């Protein structure tokens, strides 16, 4: 493979890209502290680190979205000036963002053509674009219909469009920011086939992830960042899950919470034939029936948008039912308002923790008593009792290890992990009979995730019936006693813990019933 050799897509390859001594300073935070990083044609270099370790900052520097305070970027030995995403694209660097950069109301071809010079001058040349899209799709196994609208595509297909977009613009090096976060296991496998093909063809890939088994599966090298510094770079062959986790966090971590045997009690939450609509007025739940028993965690697996959100909202009284019954303990709570339902011993960790779990502008103390602010001892005759509230909030913060400068700090200033701990503290201190936990660790780093998992397991030990709704299959497999899979608003099947694995759950998640 000589200097002049080009990729199947026709683009010149980037044989070697090097970032040297990158420093990026934000007010009060040193996000990148003399970071060195390199990637070569024909390899997948994984970039691993906790939230806030500086991975995204480093990649945004590479993609021209941030200007570094110090350091330089060398492409094939020559210094490269990258001041904007357009510069990066012109130099053959593409980025697949975690949140897709697609316009849902436009077609695949229109999304690809957007911002490009057209061969027909002022008029769009969608025919030419479509042909090229099909060509690229064939080369790398990324089949999509160029005339389909984005909103018609599955998440996996949308991701293919993102990759095609980058290839179309001549990307020889691709930055992949958590590309598997929203995919089913089968879709991940397909994506990895594409990645391997691209690497064989001479592309250079940078793979950002915090899923260790995926990093071990796809990458050739792993570089770990922590607190803005490079902790180490290892060949993947020589790496282990435990070793990488230790490098990321800086201490030993238990990757799998202990799953002790617990005697399962009577059904605490019974859902009977639930039907409900989504915000768009489409049927989101179509006859869901489930039981959650005391001392068990029932995992609800599924690809995002298959009715999970609506189910949680229906149980907690935030969304109206069309049909069906919800029984909590032995009380029928169908059609009751959220306040009445909570008083019956239901706690809720909402999916959108910043939107539904907290009031951003309120401080820690106020958020800690949101649920019970109107009851004794926090309020008497309508007046808030601040000394009691402050003392109580202080205890919660201590007990649940919430890192905050003070109790007067607004919730919005806390990190995601600490917010979640505060919500957990508020919800669990009520000693709930039933707990609905929606995506409890989404977006959290390993340390916080480990903590939340431990707390959920403790709660199970104490006899709480937990419905764990998660799109993270590893989390579901690690915590659940039984696993129900939801697809298009229907329960596809319930699998016992000992029989569950990524393959059989993945098929159910894709709507395939064995």
């Amino acid at each position: 493979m000589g200097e002049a050799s080009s990729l199947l897509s026709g683009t010149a390859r980037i044989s070697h890209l090097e970032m040297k001594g990158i420093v990026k300073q934000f007010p009060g935070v040193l996000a990148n502290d003399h970071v060195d990083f390199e990637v070569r044609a024909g390899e997948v270099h994984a970039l691993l680190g906790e939230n806030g370790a500086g991975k995204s900052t480093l990649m945004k520097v590479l993609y021209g979205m941030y200007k570094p305070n110090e350091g330089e970027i060398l492409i094939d030995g020559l210094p490269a000036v990258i001041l904007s995403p357009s510069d990066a694209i012109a130099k053959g660097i593409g980025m697949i963002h975690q949140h897709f950069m697609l316009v849902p109301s436009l077609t695949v071809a229109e999304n690809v053509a957007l911002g490009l010079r057209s061969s027909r001058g002022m008029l769009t040349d969608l025919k030419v674009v479509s042909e090229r899209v099909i060509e690229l799709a064939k080369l790398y196994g990324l089949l999509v219909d160029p005339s389909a609208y984005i909103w018609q595509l599955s998440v996996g297909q949308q991701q293919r469009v993102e990759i095609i977009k980058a290839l179309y613009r001549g990307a020889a090096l691709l930055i992949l920011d958590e590309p598997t976060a929203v995919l089913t296991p089968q879709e991940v496998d397909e994506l990895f086939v594409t990645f391997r093909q691209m690497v064989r063809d001479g592309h250079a890939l940078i793979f950002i992830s915090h899923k260790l088994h995926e990093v071990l599966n796809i990458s050739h090298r792993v570089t770990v960042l922590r607190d803005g510094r490079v902790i180490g770079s290892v060949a993947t062959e020589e790496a282990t899950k435990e070793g990488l986790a230790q490098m990321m966090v800086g201490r030993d971590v238990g990757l799998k919470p202990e799953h002790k045997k617990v005697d399962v009690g009577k059904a605490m939450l019974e859902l009977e034939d639930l039907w409900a609509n989504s915000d768009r007025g489409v049927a989101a739940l179509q006859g869901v029936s489930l039981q959650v028993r005391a001392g068990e965690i029932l995992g609800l697996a599924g690809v995002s948008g298959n009715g999970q959100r609506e189910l949680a909202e229906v149980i907690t009284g935030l969304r109206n039912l069309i049909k069906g019954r919800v029984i909590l303990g032995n009380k029928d709570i169908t059609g009751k308002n959220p306040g009445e339902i909570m008083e019956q011993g239901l706690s809720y960790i909402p999916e959108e923790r910043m939107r539904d779990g907290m009031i951003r502008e309120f401080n820690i103390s106020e958020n800690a008593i949101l649920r019970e602010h109107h009851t004794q001892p926090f309020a008497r005759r309508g007046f808030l009792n601040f000394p009691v509230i402050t003392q109580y909030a202080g205890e919660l913060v201590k007990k649940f290890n919430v890192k905050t400068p003070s109790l007067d700090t607004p919730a919005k200033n806390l990190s995601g992990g600490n917010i979640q701990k505060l919500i957990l503290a508020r919800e669990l201190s009520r000693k709930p009979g039933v707990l609905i936990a929606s995506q409890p660790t989404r977006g959290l780093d390993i340390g916080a995730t480990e903590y939340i998992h431990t707390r959920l397991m403790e709660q199970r030990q104490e006899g709480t019936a937990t419905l764990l709704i998660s799109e993270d299959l590893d989390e579901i497999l690690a915590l659940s006693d039984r696993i129900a899979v939801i697809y298009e608003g229907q329960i596809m099947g319930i699998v016992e813990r000992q029989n569950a694995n990524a393959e059989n759950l993945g098929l159910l998640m894709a709507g395939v019933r064995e």
Partner: protein
Amino acid sequence: MITELLSLNVLIGIATSGIRLATPYLYAAIGETFGQRSGVLNLGVDGMMLLGAYAGFYVAFTTGNLWFGLLAAIIVGAVMGLAMAFISVNLQAEQGISGIGIYLFGLGMSDLLFQKTLGTVETVKGFRSISVPYLSDIPIIGEIFFQHNILVYGAFALVPLAWFVLNKTTLGLKIRAVGENTQAADSLGVSVSGVRYFTLTLGGILSGIAGASLSIALLNVFQVNLTNGLGFIAVALVYFGSWRPGGVLFGSLIFSLVNALQVWVQVLGIDIPSDIAVMMPYVLTILVLVFTVQRTRPPSALTKPFERGE
């Protein structure tokens, strides 16, 4: 009495004035369509129209040249559009509120200038009707469609033109992308600010022409609050037309026909209180919005200012 309304001559009259009266709606609403498709709600249309109407009238009145008047309306509209762009793009102000500000400025300013420069209601001889050769000789059809002034023809020509620009050009693709997902457009090197400046300036120009179409082509006078809220109906028409030029055309015709009907009802002296008749187009606006707003989805980024992430 009702039978008088149904005579052929009256029906032709209603249809002809319906076509004529659609003119300001079309200019203003097509301009607003561009703005909204790029994600900016401009509620200041009526104010821009008033200033355009005043500028067009004053220049035409003093110079005696209607084209100078039209040019003045275009310039004033463009300046107002640029102002709206500066407020909503650079200052990232709440679009609804700043639009109302622009409206009140236009209303007050046009009033002030009118008092200071004209003082009384004057008239000009507006753009004359041009009969399209051959076509205007067709019975009925010719009278309804092909005996209008240049601004009327321009308004109807604007509809397919706007459709073509939005759907067939790279510029249109950029406008639609910016209105739906600013981040995505930005990540592909599309200038979100540039696109919004363009659509708002274009919207301003078309609002200015809409105003001039009243003052130097249809009514040929200027007075305080000449538009009488027409610009707000134009904004509603964009919703009614589902952000599509064809839909806007359909809506404009409905409103202008109801207006024409209302005028003829009064002309013929049919025994309905005139207040009720005048109210009809507005009642229709509300009803139409109530029944259509559920059906369609506005551009996702509408009213959202754009700022580069984190």
